[in-house]
């Protein structure tokens, strides 16, 4: 997972997640508040440059992470530029261009804001932030366990698939589907076994209610957040600046 890789290895890893989240929120608001497609593109570029140059996220990684969403956007925009008339079939619809341009600008700006947050902040920091924001404990427990166990499952998937390949489990399409069925059933079974083991492990450490953890501390949280709010204000001004 590329995002995961960058989140632990960037220069802003030690910046307070509250500050990064505030800045990302401002970025999302600005994307919707942008006065023109040009302004939105400026926002997107600004966020992307900050993430790559400021936080030191490699530009190649950034582009690879953004590619699927940009692909979705491209495909959808082509769809929106086609008009379907019940009588005369389809035709190009140049009159939809302003709407499509606004949509593309907004989406790119919002995507850049999201990437700015997730590429610089490990998920456990974000979950801890949600904990401070009083997210319901049931959801927090789900998130903590999901985040930990998804790596355990990914590894299991990788190992089982490799073992299946070693015995020619992917010989034909039919074999592949059957192998995948066995893999999925095997994993589904592990859900109960692992849940029981974790339950016992929690009991062994006196845990029989909601999972409670220390929230991480960040050295300059106040200063970081103030800076982020200022920078966020800057983004909003940039969004409203007529081009």
């Amino acid at each position, binding site marked *: 997972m590329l995002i995961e890789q960058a989140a*632990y290895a960037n220069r802003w890893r030690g910046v307070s997640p509250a500050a990064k989240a505030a800045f990302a929120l401002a970025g999302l608001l600005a994307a919707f508040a942008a006065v023109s497609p040009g302004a939105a593109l400026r926002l997107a570029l600004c966020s992307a440059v900050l993430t790559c140059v400021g936080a030191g996220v490699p530009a190649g990684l950034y582009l690879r992470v953004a590619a699927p969403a940009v692909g979705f956007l491209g495909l959808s925009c082509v769809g929106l530029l086609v008009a379907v008339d019940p009588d005369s079939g389809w035709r190009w619809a140049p009159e939809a261009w302003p709407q499509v341009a606004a949509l593309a600008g907004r989406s790119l700006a919002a995507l850049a804001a999201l990437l700015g947050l997730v590429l610089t902040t*490990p*998920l*456990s920091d974000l979950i*801890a932030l949600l904990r401070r924001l009083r997210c319901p404990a049931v959801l927090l427990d789900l998130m*903590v*366990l999901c*985040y*930990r166990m998804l*790596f*355990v499952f990914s590894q299991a998937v990788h190992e089982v698939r490799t073992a299946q390949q070693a015995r020619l489990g992917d010989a034909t399409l039919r074999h592949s589907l059957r192998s995948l069925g066995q893999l999925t059933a095997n994993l589904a079974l592990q859900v109960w076994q*692992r849940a029981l*083991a*974790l339950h*016992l*492990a*929690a*009991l*062994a*450490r*006196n*845990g029989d209610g909601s*999972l*409670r*953890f*220390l929230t*991480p501390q960040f050295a300059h949280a106040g200063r970081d957040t103030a800076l982020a709010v200022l920078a966020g204000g800057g983004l909003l001004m940039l969004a409203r600046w007529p081009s």
Partner: protein
Amino acid sequence: MAILMLLEAISLSHRYADGSLGLDGCSLAIRRGSRNALLGANGSGKTTLLMHCNGLLQPSAGSLRFAGAPLDMSRAGLAALRRRVGLVFQNPDRQLFSASVVEDVSFGPLNLGLDEATVRGRVDEALAAVGMAEHANRPVHHLSFGQKKRVCIAGVLAMQPDVLLLDEPMAGLDAAMQHELLAVLDRLAGQGITIVLSTHDVDFAYRWADDIHLLAAGRCLAAFAAAELPAQAAALKQAGQPLPAVVALQGALAARGIAAGAPARSLDALLAQLSLEEAR
């Protein structure tokens, strides 16, 4: 004598829900401050016994005593027991809940109702004790197997237990990792923590333990000071365990008057004895 016993099992039996017998009249006593090896083949009941000591399983028959008093199976009683008796399972992937090392280690002490500053202090201490302080901010899924294992131990140490139970702690570790983990255990034993670990490796048990408890088919066949192991060949055989290689060798050599000193408990010790004799 009796007051020295920190943890006692008295003819403990446990029948699993599927009808199989996990323990079958197992008795055992752990001295305060000692290093204990539960030695037995896979399936001899080692894990089941450890889970009883921590109150995770309840005996079908027989009883357990901790510090002289019978176990209190009420909610409060179990909580008090688990604070004092910590259990580390075999597989780290089945006991680490959080992807953050610090968060996971803080889980136990927070459940004790301690305040945040105390917990922070304990987490730092526990991570330092297992030599993982510099990995505190790495995610669990970037750690090696041996490192995960040490995080598991830290998670229990942060509750400051009197007894540390470890299920097959050496399994899956290569020589270097085993060495590191043993250093951690030695340090803890030096601090007066009672250690009970399960193993199927007789050489390791002989080398490391003060007391060996020999398990087979859900029973404790024999318990003895590790130094007395050479006299327990019959019991070992009954439990399907070979005699440690070093015992057999020293026996053969002693018959010729070589290395006839104190029994060596590892091949390294035997070699050292040989070179010492040579030097004389």
